[in-house]
């Protein structure tokens, strides 16, 4: 591609050359607006409130601006009232267990739907399909009531149930489609060699489904890590807050101390940002596959 475009460039008419420059500029403007808020936050989190309020754009230490300071970070990380690490641990734990549950159940249900035919097939399929269409905000009130009745709000496992339930449908459809692409003769051959249904499922088909299971996990890592509505309604205990919830609370606690808000956001975004820029290719591919096929 690059060779071809270099070749094409040599023979360009002046108008096409201007066009190509304009298109490049448009793309760069777009890309930079996507990344600029992150950079802007990063260097402004190194200012104290007074400096930030005086100048929103200057870079600390450059062109006579005051030197950068880690003040915001030390104050956030050392103040136990903000329990930032606790929130991060809650998010890591909730996301991790939810992903395991989603991948496991998606595989089981997807495999059964693809391979075992019965009267229950279609109703089950439709039931999980409906899960992708039900708007979660129409469930906030009743889920709150049901969980409250059973004393299931404000527990370490509270958020796992809704996250797994709303993560499963897309996973099931991805797995089902994938398993249908694997020839049945594989399991038939295994059965002739004496492998049971469960053994074929777990030790032959499951390893073959690894790519699609990784895709499911990638999509759900982001949606669980970023989920807000269920956490807002079901978690009141500050020690069980996940990160998005903790951030909205910081917003109130820090008031108009915006550099401090930025520092808190950056600390909590760090894991996601690092993972994203290392695995961006796989992540983008996975998310797109999920969106189009799901």
């Amino acid at each position, binding site marked *: 591609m690059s060779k071809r*475009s270099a070749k*094409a460039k040599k023979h360009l008419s002046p108008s*096409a050359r201007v*066009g*190509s420059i304009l*298109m*490049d500029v448009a*793309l760069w403007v*777009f*890309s930079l*607006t*996507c990344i600029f*808020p*992150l950079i802007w936050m990063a260097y402004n989190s190194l200012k104290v409130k007074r400096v930030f*309020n005086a100048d*929103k*754009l200057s870079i600390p230490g450059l062109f006579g601006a005051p030197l950068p300071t880690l003040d915001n970070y030390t104050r956030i990380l050392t103040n136990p009232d903000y329990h930032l690490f606790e929130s991060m641990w809650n998010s890591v734990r909730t996301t991790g267990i939810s992903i395991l549950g989603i991948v496991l*159940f998606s595989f*089981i*249900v997807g495999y059964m739907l693809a391979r075992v035919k*019965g009267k229950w097939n279609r109703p089950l399929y439709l*039931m*999980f399909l409906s899960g992708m*269409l039900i*708007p*979660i*905000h*129409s*469930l*906030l*009130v*009743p*889920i709150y*009531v*049901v969980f409250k009745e059973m004393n299931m709000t404000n527990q370490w496992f509270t958020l796992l*149930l809704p996250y*797994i*339930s709303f993560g*499963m449908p897309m996973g099931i459809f991805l797995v089902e489609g994938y398993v249908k692409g694997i020839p049945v003769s594989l*399991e038939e051959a295994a059965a002739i060699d004496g492998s049971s*249904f469960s053994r074929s499922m777990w030790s032959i088909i499951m390893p073959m489904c690894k790519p699609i299971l990784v895709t499911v996990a990638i999509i759900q890592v982001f949606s669980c*890590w*970023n989920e*807000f*509505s269920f956490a*807002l309604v079901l978690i009141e205990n500050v020690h069980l807050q996940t*990160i*998005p919830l903790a951030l909205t609370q910081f917003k109130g606690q820090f008031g108009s101390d915006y550099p401090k*808000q*930025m520092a808190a*956001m950056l600390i*909590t*975004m760090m894991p*996601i940002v690092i993972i*994203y820029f290392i695995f961006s290719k796989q*992540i*983008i591919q996975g*998310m*797109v596959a999920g969106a*189009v096929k799901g």
Partner: protein
Amino acid sequence: MLNSIRPNKRTILLYLFVPVLIFVFTVFYPLCRAVIYSFFEWKGGPNMTFNGLANYRMLFADKVFWQAFWHNIYLVVVCIIGQMGLAFILVMFANSRLTHAKAIHRTFGFFPSTISAVCIGMIWNIIYLQDGLLNTVLNRLGLITGNWMSWPNWLGTGNVMLAVSIPLVWQYIGYYMVIMFSAIAGIDSEIFESAEIDGANGFQKAVKITLPLIKNTILVCLTLCIAGNMKAFDNIYVMTQGGPGTASMVMAMYGYNTSFRDSNLGYGSTISVAIFVLSLAVIGGSQWLVKRTTKGVEA
């Protein structure tokens, strides 16, 4: 599948029991409860009184709810035009042989859609402050002058809906770009080459060849876009809480306020049911409309 390796009923049940139970318990059971509560007057305490269709009558007359509904529709329209339109144009640029660094644009452009809506909302709040980033930049460019107290308040009543929709549009342009990009990569490049030989320009290629060929992908994007904006909540919660007044109220925010801030769980359930019905109606209706209009084009 061979009958000999078909698992027995007990095995099937054993495998499906847990996932189905979890799903029914957190999705269907609550949904049924919401329908039941929607016929009751209930403020969250022990007193629940059946009041028939009174909640629904109240809903139909509830100006704030319908204002919120139209705000959702506004978001859908702005995002379809902004996200999908801009995404398509940018993809056409990126797909051209004349532009460079596609991988970087893809990585940078997709980045905002991996960040939580809460973070995005908080960042844009700081951008929109009266002496925030946007006004500061406008001031440096000489477009607004004077004391910052006189600078525009972007989250004020007049333009708040546009202001809250810009972060939404911005966050997901890259997402739709990547989806469209992968669809276009699947088109046989010979089609474009022969069109070029026939003298088609970039615009003609985009509209007459690419667009019809990725029609299905566009439909997927459309559905995602509509479904996503009918449930807009996180951004609004962080940025305006539906205010000032009800100037940026959306359905989910109104349902949340009614149910949890005013603890009116009965009417809140009615709103929940309405969100469910209206969202499905808008998604279904738009699909029907698209299918109907595109059928004529094909024939």
